[in-house]
C-alpha cells in the first residue's frame, strides 16, 4: 500500500494524570473517507486535534506523508496546515458575524482574492449547503442543523485537500444526519479530498467510509473496511458496535444489519433443510440524480420512503429487511417460494408507483422550489434460498437478477 498520508506511531497523550490516548498506532490514506469511531469521551476529538496540530503528543510520533511532524520546518508545517480544514464538534462559528461573513472569513484573511471572487465562492457554498435564506442571519438565530451546515460550508470554502470533521452530525434528525454524511461523501468524490471523520453514528457512517478506525480503551483496536469491521471479533464489537447500532436503523426504520443477521439465524434454526426462503434486493438506482436535482435531504427522504414501503409490504407478512448499502435494500421472506415472492413484489411495485413516488416527490419538493423532473429508477431482484445456502450467495444471486421495477 502507498505511504500513508497521516500515520501515528505509539502516540500517547495525557491531561494531568489522565491518559486519554495510549500507544495509538494508525494510518490514514489519501483520497479516502476514514472514520474514527468510539464511544463519547473515548478521545476521538483529541486524536483528531493531534492531526491539525491543536494538540501535541506527550509520547510517540505523528508522520505526515512519511515525515515526522517534529522534524518539519515551520514553513513546511504551515504548508501542511494550509491543506487542511477542520469542522468543530460545536461548530465554533463566530457569533458576532453572519453566516455569510463566517464562510467568507478564511478567504478574506488568508487569500488575496478580490471581493467579487470571494462572493462567488461563498454564495456557491451557501447554495450547496442550502443556507440561502440564512446567509445574513447570525449563528444564534439558526437551528442546530443550520449551524452545522454553516460550519461545513466554512470548512469547504477554501477547497482543502484534507478535511477533518469532528462529529459532523451531532444533534441532527435522521434525515439531516444522513444528508450531511451524503454531502460529505459527494464533496469527497467531487473534489477528491481526504475526509477524516469522528463519529459514533453507526451504521450511517459505514455507508460512506472507505476505512474505519475503532478507538477503544484509549487505543486504536481496529483499522479496516466497514465490511471487515463486521467480522471483527473483539470486545469492542460486542460492547460498542452493538450499543451504538441499535436494533433498527434510524433513517429507514428497517432492521440494523446485525439484527437482520440475528433474525435470519433464528429463522434458520426453525427450518427443515428442504424449506425455502426468498430474498429480494432493491436498489434506488437514481439516488445521485435525485440529490443533484433536489439536494441531499431530498435524497435521504427518498431512501427513507423506500425503507418505509419495503417494511410495509415485506414486514407485514413476516419478512424482515435491512439496508445493505447507501441505496440498496434487502428483504427476506421466509416460508415463501419464488411465485409467492413475485406476487408480493408486484404488489410492492404497484403501491410504490401509485404512492411511493408521490411520497418521494412530496419529500423532495419540500426541500426545494425546483420544478424540474428527474428519471426515477428502482431495480429489484429475487432469489430463492435454502437453510444450507449462504445468505451472502443468495443476496448476490438476487442482485444479479435485478431489473427495473
Amino acid at each position, binding site marked *: 500500500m502507498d505511504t500513508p498520508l497521516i500515520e501515528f506511531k505509539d502516540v500517547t497523550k495525557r491531561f494531568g494524570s489522565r491518559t486519554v490516548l495510549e500507544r495509538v498506532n494508525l494510518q490514514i490514506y489519501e483520497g479516502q473517507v476514514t472514520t474514527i469511531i468510539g464511544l463519547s469521551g473515548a478521545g476521538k476529538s483529541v486524536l483528531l486535534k493531534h492531526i*491539525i*496540530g*491543536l494538540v501535541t503528543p506527550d509520547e510517540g510520533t505523528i508522520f505526515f506523508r512519511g515525515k515526522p511532524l517534529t522534524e518539519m520546518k515551520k514553513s513546511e508545517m*504551515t504548508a501542511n*496546515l*494550509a491543506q*487542511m*480544514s*477542520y469542522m*468543530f464538534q*460545536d461548530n*465554533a*462559528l*463566530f*457569533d*458576532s458575524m453572519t453566516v455569510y461573513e463566517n464562510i467568507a*472569513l*478564511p478567504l*478574506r*484573511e*488568508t487569500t488575496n482574492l478580490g471581493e467579487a471572487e470571494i462572493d462567488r465562492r461563498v454564495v456557491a457554498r451557501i447554495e450547496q449547503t442550502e443556507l440561502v435564506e440564512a446567509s445574513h442571519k447570525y449563528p444564534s438565530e439558526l437551528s442546530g442543523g443550520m449551524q452545522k451546515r454553516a460550519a461545513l460550508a466554512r470548512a469547504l470554502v*477554501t477547497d482543502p485537500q484534507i478535511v477533518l470533521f469532528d462529529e459532523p452530525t451531532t444533534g441532527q434528525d435522521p434525515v439531516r444526519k444522513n444528508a450531511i454524511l451524503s454531502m460529505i461523501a459527494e464533496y469527497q468524490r467531487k473534489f477528491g479530498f481526504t475526509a477524516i471523520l469522528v463519529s459514533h453514528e453507526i451504521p450511517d457512517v459505514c455507508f460512506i467510509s472507505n476505512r474505519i478506525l475503532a478507538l477503544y480503551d484509549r487505543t486504536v483496536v481496529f483499522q479496516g473496511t466497514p465490511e471487515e469491521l463486521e467480522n471483527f471479533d473483539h470486545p469492542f464489537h460486542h460492547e460498542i458496535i452493538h450499543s451504538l447500532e441499535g436494533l433498527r436503523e434510524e433513517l429507514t426504520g428497517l432492521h440494523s444489519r446485525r439484527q437482520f443477521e440475528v433474525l435470519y439465524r433464528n429463522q434458520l434454526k426453525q427450518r427443515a433443510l428442504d424449506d425455502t426462503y426468498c430474498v429480494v434486493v432493491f436498489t434506488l438506482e437514481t439516488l445521485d440524480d435525485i440529490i443533484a436535482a433536489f439536494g441531499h435531504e431530498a435524497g435521504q427522504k427518498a431512501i427513507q420512503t423506500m425503507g418505509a414501503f419495503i417494511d410495509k409490504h415485506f414486514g407485514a407478512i413476516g419478512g424482515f429487511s435491512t439496508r445493505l448499502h447507501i441505496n440498496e435494500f434487502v428483504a427476506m421472506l421466509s416460508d415463501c417460494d419464488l411465485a409467492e415472492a413475485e406476487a408480493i413484489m408486484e404488489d410492492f411495485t404497484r403501491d410504490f408507483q401509485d404512492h411511493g413516488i408521490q411520497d418521494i416527490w412530496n419529500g423532495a419538493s419540500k426541500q426545494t422550489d425546483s420544478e424540474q423532473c428527474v428519471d426515477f429508477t428502482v431495480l429489484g431482484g429475487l432469489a430463492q434460498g435454502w437453510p444450507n445456502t449462504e445468505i451472502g450467495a443468495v443476496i448476490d444471486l438476487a442482485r444479479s437478477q435485478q431489473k427495473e421495477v
Partner: protein
Amino acid sequence: MAMDRNQASLSQPDAEWRMATLLTAPSAAIGRGVFRWVRNLGAGSIFLLLALAMIFRPKQFHKIAQQIYYIGASSSLVILLVGLFTGMVLSLQSYHALVKFGAEGSLGTLVALSLIRELGPVLTAIMITARAGSAMTAEIGVQRISEQIDALGTMRIHPLKYLVSPRITASIISFPLLTGFFDLIGILGGYITGVMILGVNSGIYFHRVQASVELKDITDGFIKAIVFAVIVSTICCYQGYFAHMRTDSHGAKAVGRATTSAVVLSCVLILVADYMVTSLLI
C-alpha cells in the same frame, strides 16, 4: 502500651513536620505568588511583543479602524461626561481654596495643569478600561471557551494578529486622542464653574490656561496615555485570551473572573505606572 509508645514515637516527627509546614506556609504562599506574578509578567511581555510584531501585517487596517471606532469614537460620550464634571468639581474645590489666598485668578492654571498632567490621562484610561477593556476581555474570553480561537488557528489565521494586535494598536491611537478630548472638556467644565457660576474673569481664566501650559505638559500627558493604552489593552486581551487556563474557575465563570481581574489589575497598574512615568518625566 507498647503500641501506644510506637504511635507516639511515629507521631513526633509528623507533628514537627506539621508545625514546620504551618510556619513556612505564609512564605511559601508568597513565594508561589511571586513566581506566578513573574511568570505572568514574562508571558504578558511576550504576548505584547508578538502582538506588536503583527501590527504591520497585511489586512490589518480595516480591523484597526473598527477597533478605533469601538474603543475611541464610541467612548467619546463617557469621556465627555466624566471630563466635564471632573473639570467642574476641580474648579469648584480649587476656587474655594484659592480665594482664601486671594489667588482665584490662578484657577485656570490649576485646572489646566491638573487635568493635562494627571487627571486627564489617568481618568481617561480608567474610563476606557471600564467601558472597552472589560468588553475586550469578555469578547476574547467567550471566543476562547467556544473554540472560536482554535477555529482561527485551523483556518491559518493567527489569533494574535486577528484579535489582539488590532485592539492594542487601536488603544495606542485612541487613548491619547481621548485624553486630549478629556483635557479640553475638563478645561471647559472648569470655565463653566469658575467663570459662569463663581464669577472669575473669563479673560484671566483663559490667559492663565494659555500662559501656564507648556508643550512638555501636553506631550507628557500623551506619553502617559500611550503607556496606559499598552498596559490596559495588553492586560485585557491577555486575560481573555488565557481565560481557559484559569485554575480558579471554568467556562462562563472563568470569563467573568478574567474580566474582573482585567479591570482591577488595569486600574491598579494605571496608578502604579502613573507614578513611575511621572517620576521619569518630571
